[in-house]
C-alpha cells in the first residue's frame, strides 16, 4: 500500500440533538501522499462536512481521523490549531482573506502565527509564491482592492507559506469564470508536482474533478464511487 497522509476510520457525523442529521455514515478513507484528489457530490451529500473534519475544523461524532499517523480526534484545541497551522493549508470558495491586510501580509499571516518577524527566506518564499500566482504587481495592495481571481490566487499562496503536507480546497474555483478556473487549477496541479503537496478538492465542477488523480463521490454521507483517474 502507498504511503498515506490521511486516514479516516468509521467516521460518523451527526448534527442536531432533536432532529438528527446523519451527515457522514461510518466513512473510512485513505489518501495517499502527494496525490491529487477530488471529492464530488450533490449539495447535502456530506462533502463539506468531510472536508471540515479532515481540516480539524469540526469534530467527528465518532470514529478516528489520522493526519500523518497522528490521531487528531483526541487532540486539544491548541494542538488542533497547530495542526491547522503547520500541516494543513486551506483554500475556500469565498477567498476568506483579511481585508485589513495587504496581499503580501495575508500570505505571511500563517507564518506570523509562529514568528512575527519572518526571516529573509520566508519573505523570499512569499515573493516567489506571489510571483508564481502572478500577484507581484498587487502585493502591497489591500485585498479589497484586487480582483476575485487575484484574491483566490492570494488564498492559494497563503495556504502554501508554511509548507503544508495537505491542502484542503472547498470549491476553490466555484466563484471564478472558466478562464480563471483553468489558471487556478493549473497552479494547484503545478504545486502538487513541484512540492509534492497532497490536495483534496471539494468541487461540483465536473471538468475540475475529471482532472484529478482520484475521484471520490459522496452521496448521503457514504462513498458511492471511488475511482482512479488516468486521464493525465
Amino acid at each position, binding site marked *: 500500500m502507498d504511503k498515506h497522509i490521511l486516514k479516516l476510520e468509521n467516521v460518523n457525523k451527526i448534527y442536531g440533538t432533536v432532529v438528527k442529521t446523519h451527515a457522514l455514515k461510518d466513512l473510512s478513507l485513505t489518501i495517499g501522499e502527494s496525490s491529487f484528489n477530488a471529492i464530488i457530490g450533490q449539495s447535502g451529500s456530506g462533502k463539506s462536512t468531510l472536508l471540515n473534519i479532515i481540516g480539524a475544523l469540526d469534530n467527528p461524532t465518532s470514529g478516528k481521523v489520522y493526519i500523518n499517523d497522528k490521531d487528531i480526534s483526541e487532540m486539544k484545541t491548541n494542538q488542533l*490549531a497547530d495542526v*491547522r497551522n503547520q500541516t494543513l493549508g*486551506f483554500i475556500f470558495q469565498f477567498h*476568506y482573506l483579511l481585508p*485589513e491586510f495587504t496581499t503580501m501580509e495575508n500570505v505571511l499571516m*500563517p507564518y506570523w*502565527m509562529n514568528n512575527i518577524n519572518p526571516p529573509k527566506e520566508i519573505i523570499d518564499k512569499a515573493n516567489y509564491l506571489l510571483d508564481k500566482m502572478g500577484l507581484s504587481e498587487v502585493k502591497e495592495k489591500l485585498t479589497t482592492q484586487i480582483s476575485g481571481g487575484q484574491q483566490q490566487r492570494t488564498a492559494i499562496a497563503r495556504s502554501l507559506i508554511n509548507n503544508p503536507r495537505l491542502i484542503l480546497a472547498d470549491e476553490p474555483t466555484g466563484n471564478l469564470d472558466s478562464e480563471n478556473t483553468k489558471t487556478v487549477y493549473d497552479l494547484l496541479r503545478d504545486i502538487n508536482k513541484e512540492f509534492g503537496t497532497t490536495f483534496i478538492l471539494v468541487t461540483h465542477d465536473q471538468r475540475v474533478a475529471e482532472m484529478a488523480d482520484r475521484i471520490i463521490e459522496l452521496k448521503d454521507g457514504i462513498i458511492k464511487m471511488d475511482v482512479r483517474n488516468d486521464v493525465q
Partner: protein
Amino acid sequence: MRLSFRIAWRFIKSSRGQSFLIIAGITIGVAVQIFIGLLIQGLQANLVQETIGNSSQITLRSTRKDDLIISPDEVVKNIRESPYADEIESVLAVSDTPGIIRLDERDYSAFLRGFDLKEGNKIYDFDNTLIRGDLPDKQGEVIIGNEMAKELSLEPGDTIKLVIPPVVILPKTVTVSGIFQFGLGQANRTWMISDLKTVQNLRNKPNTASSIEMQIEEPFQADVLATKLMEHLKNDALNALDWKEENADLLSALNGQSISSIMIQVFVIISVALAIASVLAISVVQKSRQLGILKAMGIRNSKAGQIFIFEGLMLGVIGAIMGTLVGVGLIWMFTTFAVNPDGTAVVPVYINYGFIVLSMGIAIASSVIAAMIPGIRSAKLSPIEVIRNG
C-alpha cells in the same frame, strides 16, 4: 502576543468610525473625570487653606489655673528637636490677652497677640497680608487689622492708649507701625499683633506664653501628630488641640464633597466601560469572519482573544491621553477665564499629577476589562460556524 497586537491595530485602523466613537467616549469620560476631580480638589484645598491656612493647626495650651505656659522657649526648642520636627512647618509661642483701646468718646475691645514675627510670617504671610506700613521692629509697636484701622481712623505712626487686664493698671501707649488684612473678618476687626517681648512686658508676665501654635505639613494628620507630640513632650502642664476637632462640621462637609466626587467618577467609569464593551462586542460580530479565517489558519484561541484585549488597551491608552489633554485644557480654561475682578482664579486649581495618572490608569484598566467580554467571545468562536455560514 505581537501578532494579536498587530491585528488589533489593523482592526482599529480599518474601522475608523467605530474606533473614533470608542475613543471619543473614553476621551469624554476621562476629561470629565479629570476636570471634576481637579476642580473639587481645588475647591477643597482652597476651603481648607482659607479656614486653617492663616491659623494654628495644632495648639498647645496650659493646663495651669493661671493659663500660662512657663518658659515657652524651652517647649518650642523641645518641639523643634523632636523626631517630628520634619512634619512641622512652623512653631510659635504666642502670648495673647484681651485689651481695651481707650478713646476719647468710647472704648474699643481688642485682642493683643505677641509672637516671634519672623516665624509667624510662615503662618500669617505678612509679605502679602501687611497692606500698609511695616512690621513692628521696636518695643511698643503693633500692627492692626484694616477694619480696626478704618473704624478708629488709625494710620501707621498713630499711637493708641491700651488698657490690659488687670484693669487697675494704667493705660499703656503703643504705636501703630502697620496695617494687615487677613481672610478672617474677626481678626481684621480686633487683632493687634506685636512681638512676644512687647506683649509679655505689656502684660507684665515675662517668660510666659498663652499658647504654642503650630502649622504642619499634612494638616489632615493634625490629630495623629498632636497625640505623638504630646507623648514626646511628656509635659502635664500642656494639652493639645487640633483644628480638626474644632472644625468637625467643615470636615464632614469636605467628606460629603469627596464622596459625591467619587460617585460621579465611578459612574463615569462604568458608563465608559459599558460603552467600550458594547462597541467591542459588536466588533466581534463584525469581525467574526476574520476570526474564523484566522482560526482556520491555526491561530490559537488565546491569541484570538488577545486581539480584543489589545484593542481595548490601545483604545484605552489613546482615549486616556486625549481625555487628559481635554480635561487639563478645560481646567486651564476654567482658571484662566473664570476669574475674580483682581485677576485671580475663582477656584485656584492645583494640577495633581498623581490624580491624573490614576484617572488614566483607571480608564485604561476599565477599557481592558471591558474588552475581556468580547475577548472571551472571540476565543470561543468556532471557525466552522463562520466557514459554514459564509
